[in-house]
């Protein structure tokens, strides 16, 4: 026994020796090798944005900026902002980061701002500005939420057209419910608590932001509070949807992926979700046709909640900030990269002169139509809890809000209590 133990130990040590040799690359080797600068780039993987996607996209950008070689780093889960914070706390902030929320990083001077000249190709060059400076390339727009619906279930309940007013939405919900169909699929289980926010994002846009577009900025200045009647009314709509059992609390145990699956399985007729669902619905068609409509207002006037931003960021301490910025711009402006983002993630690129591929599917086209219409009639507003920049919620508050919405859906909190909770948390987060 003793001999085998010793032998085994020697074997693992030998293996360990090889492992060490192979895996610990000297830090210094990272910089300038053969005149090239190696920059680290933090990305995240999802079922749509897989390893092959990132590798191809990185290669295309690097072809345009040949002075740069990229070392791809992958987050352990989709929550890249939390991971970036942990890396930063450990003194390891990567040189370039994809789709990390700049809040906090920017104020602390950890990110390099982009100049107006650098942003000249972007449709909304000031989107997500923090103190007047843009730290994250505003490369795409998302409509949050779009209400995707199951045309079969609508037809079965005798519903002929999507709603144009909030009252119609309630009538439709009642019809569906009476026919034994859960009207809304809302998720938020497991680590994906955020997935329950979309109906509230809708009602906050229609009931709060429509009247006061810079409401959250005013909240930061202390001019308004969550307990003000407008916001409570928006929350009350969610409370009522849950009370009438139009939202199934079963969703609170569904992860984001399971939530989408539940909609695909016909477990509910309407799926309020970000516009990125569109390509998923096109690429992997459910057994029914999917329609799309914007979250309706009381009086039927248009409101299109959107978020623009979400692109690449550059660390202020990158090995070569100028090159890193150049590479980030190349990455975000590359036509093929944007095509890939459109195809894989339903993004609506916000780059001047960009047109999506002609062969996009019907759900994506319906989604883009909602956005184009919103642009045309000037009904673009922020998407609550998704904001970046000066008008954003303080760090951690979006997570708290998502937890609060769970309480709203299970009936543990009413709208008033939910609003009070948010005011409390806001005070804590900013103290």
């Amino acid at each position, binding site marked *: 026994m003793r001999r085998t133990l010793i032998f085994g130990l020697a074997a693992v040590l030998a293996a360990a020796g090889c492992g060490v040799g192979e895996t610990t690359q000297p830090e210094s080797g990272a910089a300038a090798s053969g005149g090239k600068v190696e920059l680290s780039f933090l990305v995240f993987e999802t079922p749509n944005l897989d390893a092959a996607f990132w590798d191809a996209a990185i290669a295309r950008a690097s072809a345009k900026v040949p002075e740069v070689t990229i070392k791809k780093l992958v987050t352990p889960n989709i929550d890249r902002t939390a991971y970036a914070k942990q890396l930063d*706390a450990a003194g390891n902030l990567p040189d370039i980061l994809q789709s990390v929320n700049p809040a906090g990083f920017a104020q602390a001077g950890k990110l390099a701002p982009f100049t107006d000249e650098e942003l000249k190709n972007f449709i909304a060059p000031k989107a997500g500005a923090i103190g007047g400076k843009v730290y994250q390339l505003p490369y795409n727009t998302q409509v949050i939420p779009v209400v995707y619906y199951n045309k079969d279930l609508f037809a079965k309940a005798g519903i002929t057209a999507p709603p144009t007013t909030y009252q119609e939405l309630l009538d439709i919900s009642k019809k569906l419910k009476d026919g034994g169909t859960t009207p809304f699929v809302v998720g938020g289980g497991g680590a994906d608590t955020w997935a329950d926010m979309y109906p509230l994002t809708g009602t906050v846009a229609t009931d709060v932001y429509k009247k006061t577009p810079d409401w959250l900025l005013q909240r930061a200045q202390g001019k308004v509070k969550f307990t003000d009647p407008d916001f409570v009314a928006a929350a009350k709509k969610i409370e009522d949807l849950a009370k009438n059992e139009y939202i199934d609390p079963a969703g609170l145990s569904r992860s984001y992926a399971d939530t989408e699956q539940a909609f695909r399985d016909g477990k509910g007729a309407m799926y309020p979700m970000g516009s990125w669902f569109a390509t998923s619905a096109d690429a992997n068609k459910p057994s029914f046709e999917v329609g799309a409509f914007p979250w309706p207002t009381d009086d039927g006037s248009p409101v299109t909640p959107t978020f623009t931003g979400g692109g690449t960021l550059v660390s202020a301490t990158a090995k070569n900030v100028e090159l890193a910025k150049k590479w980030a711009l190349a990455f975000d402006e590359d036509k093929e990269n944007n095509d890939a983002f459109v195809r894989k993630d339903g993004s609506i690129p916000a780059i001047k002169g960009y047109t999506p591929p002609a062969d996009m599917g019907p759900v994506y086209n319906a989604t883009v139509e909602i956005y184009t219409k919103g642009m045309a009639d000037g009904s673009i507003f922020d998407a609550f809890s998704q904001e970046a920049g000066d008008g954003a919620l303080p760090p951690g508050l979006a997570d708290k809000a998502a937890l609060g919405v769970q309480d709203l859906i299970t009936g543990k909190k009413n709208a008033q209590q939910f609003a009070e909770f948010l005011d409390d948390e806001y005070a804590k987060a900013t103290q």
Partner: protein
Amino acid sequence: MNARPIVATFVGVVFFLPLYLVLVNIFKPSAAVVADPAGLPFPPTFDNLAAVLNRPDHLFTFGLINSIAVTALSVTVLTIFSAMLGHYLARSRHWGAKVAMGTLLCGLMIPVPVIMAPITTVLKWFDLMTTLQGLVLVNVGYYVPFGVLLFTGFVKSVPLELEEAAALDGANRFRVFWQVVFPLLRPASASVTIFLGVWIWNDFLTPLIVLGPDSGTTVTVGVYRAIGQYQSDFGSVFAFMFLATLPILIFYLALQKNFVKGLTGGAVKG
């Protein structure tokens, strides 16, 4: 009396059900996982396992090398350090030894996340962030209390007279310890090796932060990434989990006979 095997088997089967679900779904295509999660995989497919092994980014294979290196080095150093420290504390009657032991035991209950940020600060002092050596040292510091706990318990079952006799023969302390005492502590060493091996192998947060994404990952960090990437594609997730667990499971099976004895040490005569 005849009911015993039936009851025992029944309880065992119920207990095993969650693991059964993992095992069968590894060998099914994803459509079958959704359609019939509990059914047997006929015909079985090895695509899920092959996909993990043949990943173009070598997430599994590179992670495996790192995991083996980190676990083997940490456990070896830990066994040596905690055997010596455990022996020293068990034999010492100085009040300081009691204080040291108490302080060590408090460390057993501290969750790593709670002290993770300051740990990185300490590592930076020595320029050990993002190195394997740094990760091994953190593991050693963090898990040494558990090793000491097991070794002190066991040392007390080793007769003091034996050490004294050897010492009288003129051997020095160090040699007495390694040649006489340490071999007697083998069951305890086996327990320490298994337990700390399992914990370090399965550790997620420490390698994630200390190694950082630069220096590659461990298989357990790979499991996290696989979950993010495949999400509800359970066939793929389970295949990754299975392969990531297999080495440590084999390791346990190889050493299992010894480890209970060491764990319960002088306390339970196993």
